[in-house]
């Protein structure tokens, strides 16, 4: 449908903030062109991220079983799918899905954020009194970038090892212990994980709305799920630096 053209001076006084694409792109690009479609993409990529973060946390719990168990698990990720796929084949496939999901999530977030800023160019002059918009939902634009920077740092620390003085490729247990004996790193990881928990607490609820998963029988459970999920992830993740720093894992 073409852009509705104004037919009166009253209508003409209201200018669109976004222009519709001139021609409609093939599916699914036409979906991504709309804000509702972008929210779908954010929800789906968010679910991919949540799946990753769950497996990442659960896998890391092996640290409590000792060096051999954790390093064996890490090696298992590389040899996963053998002998049908080359070494690290599945790992790189999963990694590429994660990278695509992350890029889409960040791009959609940024473009929605900038459109939302255009939607209210003049801010309220008086103090707003929010009823429902909570601290988590209004800080998504801050917790998001914090998590993004943290992911980069985390890769430098424990995947590439460039920012880890005592890095031995393949010896995950040793690398983690070497990293978390430094107090500044422990503090940064704790802060980042709390930001992640806040982001998840809103995101894990919000994705149901974005994808139209709404059922009066189940709606109350959506918040319960988001709270339980965020708490479980943060509790697991935060335990690693603390355990190493306190010498429980060494």
């Amino acid at each position, binding site marked *: 449908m073409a852009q*509705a053209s104004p037919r009166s001076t009253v209508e003409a006084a209201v200018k669109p903030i976004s222009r519709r694409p001139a021609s409609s792109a093939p599916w699914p690009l036409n979906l991504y062109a709309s804000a509702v479609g972008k929210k779908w993409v954010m929800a789906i990529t968010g679910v991919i991220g949540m799946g990753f973060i769950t497996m990442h946390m659960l896998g890391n719990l092996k640290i409590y079983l000792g060096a051999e168990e954790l390093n064996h698990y890490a090696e298992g990720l590389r040899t996963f799918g053998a002998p049908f796929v080359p070494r690290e084949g599945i790992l790189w496939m999963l990694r590429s899905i994660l990278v695509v999901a992350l890029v889409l999530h960040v791009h959609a977030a940024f473009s929605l954020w900038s459109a939302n800023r255009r939607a209210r160019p003049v801010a309220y002059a008086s103090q707003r009194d929010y009823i429902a918009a909570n601290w988590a939902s209004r800080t998504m634009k801050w917790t998001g970038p914090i998590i993004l920077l943290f992911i980069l740092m985390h890769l430098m620390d424990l995947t590439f090892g460039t920012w880890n003085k005592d890095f031995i490729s393949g010896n995950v247990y040793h690398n983690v212990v070497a990293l978390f004996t430094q107090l500044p790193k422990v503090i940064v990881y704790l802060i980042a994980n709390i930001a992640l928990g806040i982001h998840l607490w*809103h995101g894990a609820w919000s994705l149901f*709305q974005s994808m139209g998963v709404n059922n009066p029988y189940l709606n109350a459970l959506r918040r319960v799920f988001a709270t339980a999920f965020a708490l479980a992830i943060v509790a697991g993740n935060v335990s690693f630096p603390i355990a190493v720093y306190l010498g429980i894992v060494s």
Partner: protein
Amino acid sequence: MNFTLKVWRQSGPDVKGSFETYQATGISEDMSFLEVLDVVNEDLIEQGIEPVAFDHDCREGICGSCGMMINGQAHGPGTRTATCQLHMRTFKDGDSITVEPWRAAAFTLVKDLTVNRSALDRIVESGGFISVSTGAAPEANLIPVPKVVADAAMDAAECIGCGACVAACPNGAAQLFTAAKMQHLNLLPQGQSERYQRAERMVETMEEFFGSCTNHGECQFACPKGISIDVIAYMNRDYMSAKVKNRKLSGQS
């Protein structure tokens, strides 16, 4: 009761506006907020000052004209009330009350507290209707509608188009309005034939003028009719269906 009112004054869309402080004295607790503005305006007229311009019509909560931000909340602190249903007993004697117009790119300011809400009409024009042959009204019981479905559609149809959802939304999104106007038709048998065209057109027209939903949930509490954000989820679902359904079978061009 006596109140100190800080009211936004702006003589036109391109002029700089500011808050002016007015005293409202001898106010009855049974007065509505609009009646307080009437009292203030009478004083201003007697003093030879231009009265405060604000939208109002039915003054019984069904027209959706009287939108304004009162103490940082759309339609003020009452739940499920339009400004005309906000009684002064909600406030304490001697309170200072700040009044500001709706703020959104699509709600261009006309004067003082009055904004242009025609962008909402553009959304309805794009699909918020059912195409029927005109003529004599059809027999009311010709198409049976289950009670729960009629109730759900009526909950959405309660929308009076005041724009409080846009005003309250931190993103300036019109999702609750659009979803309510769409779902009261999409839930009924009469709305099925144009369901997915409607979803596509209304969402895309909305996005030309308004921000997008980040699920704060602020709108459902600002809504004077208490419309739930459930309708937004149904709209998101219908929009996705509109994009993935077989366009021939769903009657789309």
